[in-house]
């Protein structure tokens, strides 16, 4: 990583510590959701296993999504307040500004997920994953967080104002509800079920679920990785082109 990217990363982390709202959204919201689903709604769903075991992988993905609103807003504030233009005329390496935001986003996600998994264990989460499976979980999450991070940075750069940037990330927060995160897709009504089965988050969640249960199936892993790479490439290209065009 270049020296400029390190400077950017330090800056973005300072932002995180001084903006408790975005930390709250990123770390506490997924835990609140977990408590709500497991204690209030869990008994109402019959999913064949302990509900906390079913929901944890889905909530991991939601934890990634909840962190994105803060990333989009932070990137957009840099763009609309002229900070990015300042960096551009100082000849700061083009990638450094954006990479700093993506890496911060990924690290925030990892912190949120570590906290979430800790709470899951307190609630009786029972994973049969081996050390290698856990490594796979971390790898899947880093891949997802990087892909979603680049996509969100692009959204943030393209949005007109921090408010619309925050709004642009809302679909990413909503999408997990229409996946197999909370209830299995085959329990949903027609239309919604097909959507849930084919949207990118479902194979990612199923991969995490498989890894945590000790045996992922290739039928989930391959589309999950393909979706992540696709989203990452689109996000990266879009972000880089918006970054150089918009002044």
């Amino acid at each position, binding site marked *: 990583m270049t020296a400029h990217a390190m400077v950017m990363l330090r800056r973005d982390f300072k932002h995180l510590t*001084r903006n408790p709202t975005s930390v709250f959204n990123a770390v506490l919201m997924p835990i609140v959701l977990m408590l709500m689903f497991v204690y209030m709604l869990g008994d109402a769903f019959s999913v064949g296993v302990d509900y906390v075991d079913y929901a944890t992988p889905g909530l991991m993905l939601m934890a990634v999504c909840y962190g994105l609103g803060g990333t989009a807003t932070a990137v957009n504030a840099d763009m609309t307040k*002229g900070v990015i*233009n300042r*960096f551009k*005329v*100082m000849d700061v390496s083009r990638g450094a500004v954006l990479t700093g935001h993506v890496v911060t986003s990924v690290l925030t996600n990892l912190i949120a997920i570590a906290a979430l998994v800790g709470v899951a264990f307190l609630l009786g989460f029972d994973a049969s994953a081996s050390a290698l499976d856990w490594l796979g979980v971390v790898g899947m999450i880093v891949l997802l967080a990087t892909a979603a991070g680049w996509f969100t940075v692009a959204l943030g750069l393209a949005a007109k104002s921090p408010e619309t940037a925050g709004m642009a990330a809302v679909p990413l927060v909503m999408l997990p509800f229409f996946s197999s995160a909370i209830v299995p897709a085959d329990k949903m009504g027609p239309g919604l079920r097909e959507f849930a089965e084919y949207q990118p988050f479902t194979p990612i969640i199923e991969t995490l679920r498989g890894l945590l249960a000790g045996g992922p199936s290739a039928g989930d892993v391959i589309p999950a990785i393909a979706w992540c790479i696709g989203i990452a490439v689109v996000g990266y290209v879009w972000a880089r082109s918006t970054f150089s065009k918009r002044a």
Partner: protein
Amino acid sequence: MTKAIEVSGLRKAFGDKIVLDGIDLDVEAGTVFSLLGPNGAGKTTTVNVLTTLLRADGGTVRVAGHDVAAEPKPVRRAIGVTGQFAAVDELLTGEENLQLMVDLSPVDAKDGKRIVAELLERFDLVESAQQPASTYSGGMRRKLDLAMTLVGSPRIIFLDEPTTGLDPRSRRTMWSIVRDLVADGVTIFLTTQYLDEADKLAYRVAVLDQGRIVAQGTPDELKRRLPGTHVQLRFTTAEELDAAARILPDATRDDESLTLRVPSDGGTASLRALLDRLDEYSLSAEEFSVHTPDLDDVFLALTGHGTEVPTT
């Protein structure tokens, strides 16, 4: 004298909208050049092209001897830019903002501390150095913004409307900072909506109107083309206006608004003489006002229309 900035035939359009329609200008090194124009004239677009942020559609732009399109890197090393909105990091303190600029510029790390301390001192920001920039007033933000621009000791500085929205005291502080910079040999390219600002600071002024430069010269040369200070008298009836116009042959009349514009230096002696003359003929104006030329007058004189951007 060497040229710090040379622009010829600069054109830029966004979609169908032509923003810059063939601009030519030269800025001598070590002087203040002011681009004067109303909102929407194309000032910020010009600054964005000159500072490598936007690509021109046509024409050539050389800054610090380098073509901005072909060699943006040496241009960026020579310039500093303070945009229209103070581009400070609001979550960082004043000192951290300056340190960020040190970290990102080729400045030596051990000189960095000294540079930050000197800039805080010079811009009177020492007391608030540990406060987040979000707590700063508008004037303090602009000062911090400019201090951040100066970290790499740029030889050419672009200031896009540096005093818009500032109170009179902060404006004067900003002006004295600009004068100090020029005294150190820095070239300043400044955009403004205020005629008095261009008049007080600039060595040369170009007036930008709807993407074209309609006049260029020293402030004195431009002011000679202006209507100058005048007194405006408004009457209640056309008969009174007729009578007043007869006794004041220098005046120009406007029948529609029943007003008379009388050239005057605005001093008490000439005003008394004017009022005495009206009195002598038992004429009284309903309204009396003294006008000094402002940007609107410049535009009216140079383009035949005011500063309002046409809506069509």
